[in-house]
């Protein structure tokens, strides 16, 4: 009598969790913009036997954005998932993996990320500021002013904008713009940049030094600007991931597809 087919895997079975971990690491390792994502829930799993010890696994994953930019060397385990009140961004991913002799590898993945609906946030937290469009002129102006302010005060390398990660605008009780953005060190000191900023280019890949800035601008009742930038130091890039190299790239508002 042929062996009974294996019982269907449950979404919380150890094998499913192991496959999801490989899938999430693959997705973060192949993402070029935005933030790292963490597993929130395994929505579904389907295993299709291909032969002895050879399976195709289809995973449906529900991910949540963390506070770590994709270029950050911080291990995913140490990346805090954005809270609901921070206006969470969710990722829905379909991943196809192969398991041969117990070794898992990703064959394909397709993800769609989108911010939680404003209504949901305001229902729970009426005063929480909402994500602004990253093309919002107020956001773009504020990020530019913040980076200029930082470069005018730093004794280190002149930094160029890589992409804006997220931004929020609050109108009450004070009019405030908050933004997070990724930056890259250039081949100029801030002093040299004053002379001819056009010569300041991002460092070549073998010397690249990326970083992350947070900025807050209070516009009314009186203008006040706070900027903080942290450079990661040179990271040896993983061979298959071309690092961001186009300054000024702005990250599409959450709601983008990646494959």
């Amino acid at each position: 009598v042929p062996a009974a087919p294996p019982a269907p895997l449950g979404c919380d079975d150890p094998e499913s969790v192991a496959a999801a971990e490989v899938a999430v690491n693959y997705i973060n390792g192949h993402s070029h913009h935005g933030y790292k994502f963490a597993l929130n829930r395994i929505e579904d799993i389907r295993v299709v036997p291909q032969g002895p010890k050879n399976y195709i696994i289809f995973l449906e994953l529900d991910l949540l954005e963390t506070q770590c930019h994709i270029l950050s060397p911080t291990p995913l385990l140490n990346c805090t998932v954005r809270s609901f009140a921070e206006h969470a961004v969710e990722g829905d991913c379909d991943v196809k993996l192969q398991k041969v002799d117990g070794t898992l590898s990703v064959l394909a993945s397709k993800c769609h990320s989108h911010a939680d609906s404003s209504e949901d946030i305001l229902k729970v937290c009426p005063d929480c500021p909402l994500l602004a469009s990253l093309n919002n002129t107020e956001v773009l102006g504020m990020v530019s002013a913040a980076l200029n302010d930082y470069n005018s005060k730093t004794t280190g390398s002149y930094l160029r904008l890589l992409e804006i990660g997220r931004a929020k605008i609050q109108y009450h009780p004070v009019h405030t713009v908050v933004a997070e953005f990724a930056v890259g060190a250039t081949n100029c000191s801030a002093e040299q940049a004053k002379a001819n900023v056009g010569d300041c280019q991002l460092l070549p890949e073998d010397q690249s030094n990326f970083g992350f800035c947070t900025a807050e601008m209070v516009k009314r009742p009186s203008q006040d600007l706070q900027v903080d930038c942290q450079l990661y130091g040179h990271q040896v890039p993983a061979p298959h991931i071309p690092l961001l190299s186009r300054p000024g790239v702005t990250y599409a508002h959450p709601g983008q597809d990646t494959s």
Partner: protein
Amino acid sequence: SVAKRAVAEAAQHDKVPRPVGFVPLPPPCPGKIHHFDI
């Protein structure tokens, strides 16, 4: 009316008696939520 009553009673007896302490297995999917549900 007799048929109906008989069917009702029969249906009652057809139910498979569950062993004491029977705990239905959780559905295999979706899995548990690690952070919060959006």
